[in-house]
């Protein structure tokens, strides 16, 4: 898989499911017989990875939602890791 760029359109990987768990008060990523508990920022990024938005749009949304700037390097680093873990896939 190519490293992510601002034009990459990430989606949740095959066999994974992202959902909000009230009992754990966090987003989780579910996969065969397992679960990853996500911290706040990982949850905020992943819930925007819907196969429609590109990375640039995701970054812009996050920066607007949290009134900050300069998130792109962090988001790209997270996406790279998430791709390696197969949490995310992209063309």
């Amino acid at each position: 898989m190519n490293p992510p760029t601002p034009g990459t359109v990430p989606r949740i990987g095959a066999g994974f499911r992202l959902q909000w768990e009230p009992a754990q008060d966090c987003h989780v990523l579910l996969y065969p017989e397992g679960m990853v508990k996500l911290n706040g920022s990982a949850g905020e990024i992943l819930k925007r990875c819907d196969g429609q938005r590109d990375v640039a749009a995701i970054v812009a949304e996050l920066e607007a939602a949290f009134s900050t700037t300069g998130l792109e390097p962090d988001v790209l680093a997270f996406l790279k890791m998430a791709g390696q873990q197969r949490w995310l896939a992209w063309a």
Partner: protein
Amino acid sequence: MNAPVAHRPGPPLWLLAELTYRCPLHCVFCYNPVDFARQEDELSTDDWLRVLREGRELGAVQLGLSGGEPLLRDDLEIIVAEARRLGYYSNLLTSGVGLTAARAATLKEAGLDHVQLSFQDSTREMNDFLSHTKTFELKNKVAKLIKDQGWPMVMNVVIHRLNIDHIDRIIGMAHEMGAEYLELANTQYYSWAYVNREQLLPTHEQLRHAEAVTDAWRAKLGDAMRLFFVAPDYHEGKAKRCVNGWGSTFMTIAPDGGVLPCHTARMLPGLSFPNVRETSLRAAWFDSEGFNRYRGTGWMKEPCASCAHKEEDLGGCRCQAYMLAHDAEAADPVCRFSPQHALVQAAVAEAARPKVAEHPLVFRDPVNSRRLSEPSA
């Protein structure tokens, strides 16, 4: 005097629904209780739907649909659909026997997330484990059905003395079938596997060889297929945290509605477990004696009570302690610090001796089940 306060457990994240003990196979390493044939009163569809709702309210998120062979329940599709609606990630643990293209499509439609295909021996000839054509045709066919539905392909093979030397072929076959994950699960010696332990326990040399072969495949395949080698605790001298800690993560519902911390816990004497026909899952999880008895470390005696590793392994497995040391509160005898560890070492040493007169394997079937669980006269 104040009773020691047990720490309040988190949610039972993993709910294992053992839908039935009925099974077309007769595996000699089955973990179902030896007396399964005496438990014929299965929960109804409505009972299961209520169990799913109550489990989800408690915070359960992973659902295992197991057995026996869960495909024998003709309400499986209804159960899967409700699981999906409630937000479970559903895992069907199956031998594949009974999975047709039509049924796979219906289960997919109902929202089943994942099928774990187990390799078991469907014949009475263990030595044919790998060459028995009928088994392989079936597994190949089912593997293709799983792929066609876009499910992640997870295979599970129970490893023991009689197939461990074929591990290279087993891994190769899983790769050819397009598995993304392969679990090589060394037999755990409970229930039927315990009855057949002498025939199933591999030698140290067999294990070392199997691990080396697995490592070589890992290096060759990289990320194409993930290989999990579940080490056998008899050979390691180290106790494992059983079911991630008694009453900490797992909740098993037996076919008759018994609510258990693990699928073999009913063997423990003097301990009663609730039943979903009479108790809510919430009460079972938080308030029942069965779940509270071995939570945490307060129940321990020596050598566990003062052991530096007690928080890590939580004393190992209570069932194994009971089976081997005849004391459910003893240290798990697989641990090198257990006073009974010599029993485990003796079993492993015995495995290395040439076998002259072996006992016949005892197949998991209703006749053997009734015979082995006959009340003593």
